[in-house]
């Protein structure tokens, strides 16, 4: 069978000792950085991205980055449970019941429930990814430029529909991101655009400076500005293993959440957040003791964590099959691949099967490593929470500077980072979301290329986007998503669902 052959290829690649080592390193580093309070998975990956630039082998680089991603997510859950500081919106759900559990002295059990739920969901999610990616990529190979344009539009619009905050400002951030992505030489005519005569800008803004600036620097500025009161849990992490009753209460939620997360993760825009919230809502509804939710119900930790992790795996489907990042983390991975000289898309599956299947296999290995590492090492991660912010943020600044400089030893990228960091901070203060900007920046060039090519092929007839069935359906979905987002009833609901802290 095809799938088994592919998986065998993947495992032979991922089990090469150096790749296992990089996966391990990624998981450890990701957890360590993710467990630092106030740094979510996106910021962690942005900051650790430069570590992989020196790698000769893109497979190792992407495997390590994926490891960082899982690690950072787990680290984020740790801060959510112990400190009530979720690193990003998806672990905000974990905090609702995880933190009360920690206050009841059951921090270890909550962390173990999160780890075990994530592990199971991750395994299933990896299988779904393996089964779904190849057929989708094969279908995508028949897509023309008009279809690809519509896919990108859908991806961008969906990222607003599923994100929080004002639709207007999110749209503006996307457009701004696309415009920033246009700086540099035009791909069709090689005319340098918006370069102000600076030779450094001919290749465009560095993706790393943009990502580190708006997720790293702007975030630090925000944290420095609103120092959160930390409610450090005094209780030591003692027992880790869930009791038999706990285990029985976990099985149902984890199974349901895995299904929910696997499906929602494929959606562009942030399915993992929706999955986590959705799972919480479902568990609360089906539970026999809904009154415990919000006061330390283990279902409320295991379910959302499992949903989140399943979605984290399946969100690789659009990235690997279509080259379309579903959310900012995927955009970062896409950028990393491009830096390694790989343009993800339907062709990659055939051209470089060892990369795609090696990555898929390494996801499973990464999940195993997470459980093996984190359960015994939880006490170490807990210690990381004590790192004072006065040491943390200068360290992050230094890492961001060196990492951005190291891309091609050009201090110009560092200057750009300073400008975008301050600008991003001001926009975030005004209630704008950074994620749409990054997605726009990453997808902008793709959007322009396919739009212009499609119009050249159709001899300037814009109706090509509506007469090709695939394109028409995708644009219809995008329009629907936009309408749904602005409908008042749904907006109110959405605003409440995403009462996240960004």
């Amino acid at each position: 069978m095809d799938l088994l052959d592919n998986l065998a290829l993947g495992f032979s690649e991922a089990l090469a000792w150096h790749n296992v080592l990089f996966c391990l390193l990624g998981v450890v580093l990701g957890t360590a950085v993710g467990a630092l309070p106030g740094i979510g998975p996106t910021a962690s990956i942005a900051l650790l991205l430069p570590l992989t630039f020196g790698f000769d082998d893109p497979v190792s680089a992407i495997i390590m980055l994926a490891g960082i991603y899982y690690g950072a997510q787990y680290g984020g859950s740790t801060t959510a449970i112990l400190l009530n500081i979720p690193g990003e919106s998806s672990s905000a759900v974990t905090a609702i019941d995880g933190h009360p559990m920690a206050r009841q002295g059951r921090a270890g059990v909550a962390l173990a429930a999160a780890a075990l739920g994530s592990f199971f969901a991750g395994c299933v999610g990896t299988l779904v990814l393996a089964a779904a990616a190849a057929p989708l990529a094969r279908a995508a190979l028949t897509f023309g430029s008009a279809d690809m344009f519509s896919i990108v539009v859908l991806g961008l619009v969906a990222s607003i529909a599923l994100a929080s905050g004002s639709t207007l400002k999110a749209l503006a951030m996307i457009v701004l991101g696309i415009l920033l992505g246009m700086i540099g030489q035009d791909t069709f005519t090689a005319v340098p655009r918006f370069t102000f005569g600076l030779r450094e800008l001919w290749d465009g803004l560095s993706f790393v400076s943009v990502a580190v600036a708006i997720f790293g620097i702007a975030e630090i500025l925000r944290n420095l500005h609103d120092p959160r009161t930390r409610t450090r849990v005094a209780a030591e992490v003692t027992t880790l293993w869930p009791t038999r009753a706990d285990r029985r209460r976990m099985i149902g939620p984890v199974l349901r959440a895995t299904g929910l997360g696997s499906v929602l993760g494929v959606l562009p825009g942030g399915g993992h957040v929706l999955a986590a919230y959705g799972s919480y809502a479902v568990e609360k509804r089906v539970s026999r003791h809904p009154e415990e939710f919000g006061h330390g119900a283990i279902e409320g930790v295991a379910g959302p964590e499992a949903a989140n992790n399943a979605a984290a795996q399946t969100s690789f489907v659009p990235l690997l099959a279509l080259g379309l990042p579903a959310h900012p983390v995927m955009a970062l991975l896409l950028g990393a691949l491009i830096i390694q000289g790989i343009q993800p898309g339907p062709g990659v599956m055939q051209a470089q099967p060892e990369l795609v299947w090696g990555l898929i296999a390494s996801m499973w290995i990464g999940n195993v490593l997470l459980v093996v590492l984190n359960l015994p090492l939880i006490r170490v991660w807990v210690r990381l929470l004590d790192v004072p912010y006065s040491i943390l943020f200068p360290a992050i600044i230094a890492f961001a500077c060196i990492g951005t400089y190291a891309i091609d030893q050009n201090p110009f990228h560092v200057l750009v980072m300073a400008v975008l960091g301050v600008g991003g901070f001001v926009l975030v203060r005004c209630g704008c979301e950074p994620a749409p900007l990054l997605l726009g920046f990453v997808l902008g060039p793709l959007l322009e290329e396919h739009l212009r090519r499609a119009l050249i092929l159709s001899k300037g007839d814009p109706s090509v986007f509506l007469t090709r069935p695939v394109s028409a359906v995708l644009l219809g979905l995008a329009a629907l998503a936009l309408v749904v987002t602005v409908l008042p009833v749904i907006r109110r609901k959405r605003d409440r669902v995403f009462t996240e802290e960004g």
Partner: protein
Amino acid sequence: MRPRSTGDVVAGLIFLALGVAFAVGSLGYELGELLDMGPGYLPLVLGLALAALGLACVVKAYVAPDPVPDAGPAGPGGQGAPSVVVPGDGAPAGARDAVPSDDAPDPRPLAGLEWRPVLAIAAAIVFFALTIDGLGLILATFGAVLLSSLARGGVPWLRVVITSVALTALCWVVFVLALQLRLSLFGDWLGG
């Protein structure tokens, strides 16, 4: 008339200004036509779109009819409380339903803005960018860490210096020893 949220006004004005700038800038490039777009075509369209969105943000801030608090991230609400998903989860959710209140996003996001952290962090990064080639990794990193430490007042200077030395050493270990990046430790100005 007072705007409902200065955040929307400021963000809108920023978008408006940037959109106009991009649109004007794109006029310098060949526009082309729909059949064969020149390098200026899309930037012009998108620049105008951004300006329009910015204008809409400003207008909406003054006339916004809907009571939905629309500015993005909730304030210091911690984990937040999705009241639809978690009915009865407590006060923050209830407070959010009201017209922008103290719990809603800061309606005047730039009012209480302290410039000290912003300036210190920006200075640190700019210092690094300007000196990394000249002074090399060690001194540029040390300077950047030192400057960024100034973002918070009230830290004893001795501690700042010790932290800076330790973090510089850490960066050297991570980037030079472990990752083997070829960074010159001492730059051109120092004959490195």
